[in-house]
């Protein structure tokens, strides 16, 4: 299971960064989404995957004993998903608006800010 997740994480990172490096703004957003998912999977993987050991304290005991699945990575991922969802929604609107004003999808055309004014 870990090895599959590790490979998927790597593929998501690589394809995300490749997409960010493309010139099209739509591909920039796709890259951001892929990279975000890659990071979430990485946290999931690094939080140790434990199957079938829910972190529930036995009614007879006071503390958790033995091996158990760590719930914190899932809370982290949930937070990160919500945040990156908001950012992606903003990015789509921003790119749409930029396309309307600039009439281009090419990031190399965004160079008026470097002109001397």
């Amino acid at each position, binding site marked *: 299971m870990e090895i599959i997740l590790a490979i998927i994480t790597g593929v998501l990172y690589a394809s995300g960064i490749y997409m*960010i490096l493309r010139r099209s*703004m739509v591909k*920039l957003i796709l890259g*951001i989404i892929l*990279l*975000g998912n890659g*990071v979430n999977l*990485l*946290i999931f*993987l*690094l*939080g*140790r995957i434990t199957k079938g050991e829910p972190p529930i304290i036995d009614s007879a005991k006071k503390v958790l004993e033995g091996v158990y699945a*760590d719930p*914190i*990575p899932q809370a*982290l991922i949930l*937070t*990160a998903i919500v*945040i990156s969802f*908001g*950012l992606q929604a*903003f*990015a789509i609107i*921003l*790119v749409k*608006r*930029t396309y309307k*004003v*600039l009439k281009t999808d090419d*990031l190399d055309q*965004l*160079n*008026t*800010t*470097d002109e*001397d*004014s």
Partner: protein
Amino acid sequence: MTNDIIILPLVVHLFFSILLMFLWNKINLQKIVSIVGNAVALVVAIWAFVFVYNNGTHVVESGNWPAPFGIVFVGDMLAVTLVLLTAIAGFAVSIFSAISVIKARLRFGYFSVFHFLLLGLNGAFLTGDIFNLYVWFEIIIISSFVLISIGGERNQLEGAVKYFALNFFASMIFLTALGVLYGLVGTLNMADISLKIAEVENTTLVEISAVLFLVGFGIKSAIFPLYFWLPASYHTPPSAVSAIFAGLLTKVGVYALIRVFTLIYAEDSFLTVLLLTMAIMTIFSGGVGAIIQNNIKKVFMYFIICHIGFMIGGLALFTEVAMAGVIFYLIHDIIIKTNLFLMGGLIYRIKTTTNMKKLGGLYANYPKLSLLMAIPLFSLVGIPPLSGYWPKISLILASFNAEEYWLFGALIFGSLITLIVIAKLWAEVFWKDQPKINFPKKFIYFDQLRLGQKFTFVFPVAFLTFVTLYIGFGAEHIQQLSQRIATELMNNEMYINAVLKR
């Protein structure tokens, strides 16, 4: 009440940003509410500062969860000092925004988002939990995305796309580093991480996470190979927004670097060399960039980059003298960079342009304002006894003692180039005769404003100049404060003991 004093700045900003949303269409009322809100935040920040100054590091556990398990807010000296500086800069910028930001922008919730930005900054300074730091960073960047793109002008949108792409990328790198770190130590509390990271056997992975943090925060604080988003975006929004970005957004990256590399990662020769090289290159590239620019806003932008290098260099030296210099420089820099961009806005309001070729004759027409603006410019250069002079002494002394002559040279070069550029700027903007250009008719010039409106432009600049003068002439107080913070940072047991109550 005093138990939760350090989270009050957060509560104040949250309250006012929500209140401002209810006043969505009443723009004039929003201006007053925002200024009042920032004044309240300033009072609360001073209160928190005095409280921590007298009583030492104060910790608030959210939901009363004991330290390594719940999220903690830690008000140590560094955090409350930065909260105080944020409040000062926020107060000045909110007054400056009242008239200088046009109605079309204010109508889309400018002030509400502005308070969210300050909320995020305060949160990032105060939190003691590394994932919580990520969340505050996200609040900061999402507010800054809205502020940079609000208004929707052509160059603003272009700047916003670049700003968005690189800051989002930086956040992802930060999150990756955080994931690696959590996998190694299994805790998120920074004090707890600091204790447990020493026990980790896999030092390679520790180093990888350190470099990932360096890249993530480095993009945000605009250090050498990672700063290219800054000159492309910071001059595009209105001056008030640029001012708060320049003063605080890059500095929060520096703060995070200081926190992570003093608390979590122990001194390490590889990281020291990396940080030193980056700092030297940052000073050189920022300084050289500033010389060739003709737009005063762009000149100031390259100064931000150049002077970030000073702080990173001091951090790399990792001695108490250097750290005191870094903290003093941080205090000086937040105030002065905010003020520079406000001055840029004031000049734009007087002359409709910030291009040095088209500017001139400011000293002949506005002698009093010019003298007011001279003080921050001279402080930036570091003419004694103004504020830029004192931290540079500490930094140069520390680099000399540590025998890091490249950094020593870079610091001198950075100061010299600042002097040259400021001299050029002074000659071009203030002394040169006004070149004959046609001023646009459809523009509300500074002279046409009513007295109260003029006041909103001049008061913030004067207020921040006064603070700069205090930092310069009251250098003894600031130096003592910086030294105390430096001692706290270099001996991180104090922080750890306060958080974990050992």
